[in-house]
């Protein structure tokens, strides 16, 4: 269970948000909505532990999540604006680092996003949507309980969105949490919504 208590964030001189509280139970999903610049990405980076709040607390199973950042990082899978795909490596090699840390099966993760035929292709040959799918394949591979997704379906076709929906459903069925920022409907059912700004 993830619980946010009165979070506030300053970036530079600007207050992005304050008094932000929410609770996401096991298997729960939270969708962040709001205009551009409302702080959705900032909130996701905060929940990942990349940004520190100026006030408020974040609790994971009722313990302060930021006490041990490395431990918190172990339960987080973060998908940002960038795909973090190395053009010089093949699709399979791009996942090796995540697989080595989690002990997961990279080929199964690639198959889950429909990339089985492209594993040996250098990532520079992939289209924008295929790179996004490769980035999404890191999520099931990571073993993390908390998925933080920033516009996860950007550039995906309908078939890939459906595959991604299956991943989300399976993750939640295992007790995983999903927090996503988006402007388009995601393949998620039974979600809480949080409006920023």
């Amino acid at each position, binding site marked *: 269970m993830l619980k946010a208590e009165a979070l506030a964030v300053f970036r530079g001189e600007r207050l992005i948000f304050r008094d932000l509280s929410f609770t996401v139970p096991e298997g729960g999903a939270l969708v962040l909505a709001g205009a551009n610049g409302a702080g959705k990405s900032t909130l996701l980076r905060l929940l990942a532990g990349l940004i520190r709040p100026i006030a408020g607390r974040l609790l994971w199973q009722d313990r302060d999540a930021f006490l041990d950042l490395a431990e918190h990082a172990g339960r987080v899978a973060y998908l*940002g604006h960038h795909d973090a795909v190395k053009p010089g*490596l093949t699709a399979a090699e791009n996942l090796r680092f995540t697989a080595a840390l989690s002990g997961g099966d990279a080929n199964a993760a690639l198959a889950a996003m429909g990339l089985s035929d492209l594993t040996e292709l250098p990532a520079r040959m992939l289209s924008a949507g295929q790179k996004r799918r490769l980035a999404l394949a890191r999520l099931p591979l990571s073993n993390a309980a908390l998925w933080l997704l920033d516009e996860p379906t950007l550039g995906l076709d309908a078939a890939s969105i459906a595959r991604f929906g299956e991943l989300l459903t399976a993750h939640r069925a295992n007790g995983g949490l999903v927090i996503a920022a988006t402007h388009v409907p995601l393949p998620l059912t039974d979600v809480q919504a949080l409006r920023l700004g």
Partner: protein
Amino acid sequence: MSGFLALLTREMRLSLRHGADTVAALLFFLLTAMLFPLAIGPEPETLGRLAPGIVWVCALLAALLPLDRLFGADWEDGSLDHLLLSGQTSAAIAGAKALSHWLVTGLPLLIAAAPLAIMLRMPEAAIPALLAGLLPGTLLLSLLGATGAAIVLGARRGGVLLPLLVLPLAMPVLIFGVGAADAAATGLESRPHLLLLAAMLAAAVPLCPLASGAALRGAAE
């Protein structure tokens, strides 16, 4: 420990795939050193007297070359976030980066330094001292360089800022490194210089990764 090895494997895989960067640093090292006989003339005595300094300065400059891509590439494509969220401390990430920089840049420079020193007519007695100094020296340059690279991460024109930050920090390394080779060439004891280099390395091994790890966290904010 397995996490650190996974980090190091990742770095080495990326470096080997972009092997041109390593070769470029090595060629830069050899070519700049070859300019000196052309510029100051081929007299063995003059050249031999200057050789330790030439090798050291060229190695220092060559080690700087790949630094702005050390964290820059990962920062631009979002991989740095993934590294910071890999469950490893930021100091371990910076340490793995520094070690990979040494393996693909420092170690080749160290190996190329011996033939280069012979080519520059360095006294034979001084070559072991030169190499013994370059071993902790190149490690120190990788650690200091990684710290500088993490600090300028995200700064506008960081590539220009980086040498201005790292070169002053590297001056003590240069002084004692050249001192060791010079002492051996003139028949003096090179041991004190080498011990001082080793002491600097002993201080830098824990401190530099801590500093660059903190800078990485700052850059990711």
